[in-house]
């Protein structure tokens, strides 16, 4: 009884209903996105900067820029997933600190025990402890938001304070330095170089590719976008909304924990005030890169480009000898300009 429908016999039958023209290629997809505009702006800024200051393109400075933006970039990837679902994660800066601290303190704790006899094991346990801490923070965020139905803003604002407080409480305010027999290896994998590049940027690029693959080529990624587009519709189609939400908060926290551990290698210590205020830079990077805080839009390219733009401007102001305080002003201006340009562009297209 459920026959196939007859095929459309000719286009003429339906010509009366073809009321939407196809937009040009440059008005569609990536080329029409805020991410593309910001990428162009980034390239122009970098060209201008290399002309104005020869130091900009020096290997030392580039390595510095690469390292600095990688930490923020990695967390921006995670937070972008949350933002695409229509949520927000303000607890990432604190999570970076607590994971870093737990990792360093675990290294101190296992150093000198019998675990030293098995190479690398102590370090793996420490890395595991740091990441497990992040996972726990993400799980609490996810459960409170998805199961208890609390607002993501309020939940993660609370966690920002709780986790930062824990970071101070467990260290009593003292910085924790990694120690033990694997410490050189630890510095190697967190702050070393691979083929001439700082490892941090390699991690960032690999993770960005992975996030892109997951977002655009797996059912999970599709559901992340669906949640941000229309959560009610997602639930009606049978998507496990709660599970997807919990997963994105866990991934966001894990990206923060990972970046925090990398920062320990860079700084040589995990202070309790590590990455204080980073959550705002990270969210700014996501938004500049084109993620929409109302959900449904965003991606890894935007996360990387947004994070890089902020760092390049910060670096440029330093090289130009301008007071570092102005960078804070400028980042704010860029956030608003990036969103404003996108707004004007969409207005023009719809009018």
């Amino acid at each position: 009884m459920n026959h196939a429908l007859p095929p459309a016999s000719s286009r003429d039958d339906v010509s009366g209903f073809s009321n939407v023209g196809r937009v040009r290629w440059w008005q569609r997809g990536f080329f029409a996105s805020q991410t593309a505009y910001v990428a162009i702006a980034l390239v122009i800024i970098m060209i201008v900067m290399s002309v104005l200051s020869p130091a900009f393109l020096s290997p030392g400075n580039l390595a510095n820029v690469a390292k600095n933006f990688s930490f923020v970039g990695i967390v921006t990837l995670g937070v972008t997933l949350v933002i695409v679902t229509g949520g927000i994660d303000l607890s990432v800066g604190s999570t970076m600190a607590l994971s870093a601290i737990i990792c360093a303190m675990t290294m101190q704790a296992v150093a000198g025990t019998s675990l030293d006899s098995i190479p690398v094991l102590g370090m793996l346990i420490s890395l595991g402890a740091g990441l497990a801490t992040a996972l726990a923070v993400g799980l609490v965020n996810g459960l409170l938001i998805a199961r208890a139905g609390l607002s993501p803003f309020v939940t993660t604002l609370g966690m920002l304070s709780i986790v930062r407080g824990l970071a101070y409480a467990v260290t009593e305010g003292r910085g924790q330095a990694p120690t033990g027999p694997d410490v050189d290896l630890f510095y190697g994998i967190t702050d070393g170089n691979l083929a001439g590049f700082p490892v941090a940027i390699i991690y960032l690029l690999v993770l960005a590719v992975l996030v892109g693959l997951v977002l655009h080529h797996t059912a999970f990624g599709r559901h992340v976008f669906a949640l941000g587009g229309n959560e009610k519709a997602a639930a009606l189609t049978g998507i496990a909304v709660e599970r997807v939400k919990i997963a994105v908060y866990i991934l966001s926290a894990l990206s923060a924990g990972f970046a925090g551990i990398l920062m320990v290698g860079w700084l040589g210590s995990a202070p309790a005030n590590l990455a204080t205020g980073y959550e705002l830079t990270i969210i700014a990077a996501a938004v500049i890169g084109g993620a929409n805080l109302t959900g449904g839009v965003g991606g890894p390219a935007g996360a990387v480009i947004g994070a890089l733009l902020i760092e390049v401007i910060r670096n440029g102001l330093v090289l130009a000898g301008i007071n570092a305080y102005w960078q804070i002003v400028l980042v704010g201006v860029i956030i608003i300009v990036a969103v404003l340009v996108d707004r004007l562009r969409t207005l023009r297209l719809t009018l």
Partner: protein
Amino acid sequence: MSLLVLQDVGKEFGAIQALSHVDLTIQPGEVVGLMGDNGAGKSTLVKIIAGNFPPSHGKILFEDREVHFTKPVDARSVGIEVVYQDLALADNLTAAANVFLGRELKRKVGPFSFLDHSAMNLRTAELFGELKSETRPDDVVRSMSGGQRQAVAIARTRLSKAKLIIMDEPTAAISVRQVAEVLDLIRRLREAGIAVVLISHRMPDVFSVCERVIVMRRGLKVADKPTSQSSPEEVTALITGAKEAA
């Protein structure tokens, strides 16, 4: 064989009698208009058929077997789909992504499974072709007209091989031309042997596509007759109560 039979179905919410003694039959491939003023019992009736809640009294038979739906999935599993007024589409996704949302086609690559974009686009294009809709699988829903959105929502129900599609006010709040487009989609469904219950306030729509019109008033079925033996004037009178029953 009748597709759907309701026998003496009633529903009470506390002391409120939302629906009483409703008998109705829907044949395969039949397009039936369901009309009535707000609060007449249309929504309650539809929610019982769609499995949102069970009736307080009466029996429901689907394809001659008695069914007891307690949740929408139960109704969906036998072949009853609802196209909601707000359509339940994700605006930021393409037509194909919406059609396949929650039941994506995947391709295994080693231990991982990835979306099979080309298979989904192809199948969606087929569905749109069958519906004679000029909607493209890779167009984003945000940029679509109301009629095209209806086509996406209907294509979703086609994918699940629905036998009965309940459409809730599909022509409310869209342009005249899009109304024609939606009515055409309903005719395509009938040609394919799919029964449609069209809930509408728009007399011309019901009289142009429906073979039969059911009128509800105060929880009672006051009329159930072929559109060819009725008129918009009579139906209006039945809805408002100027005429008791027909």
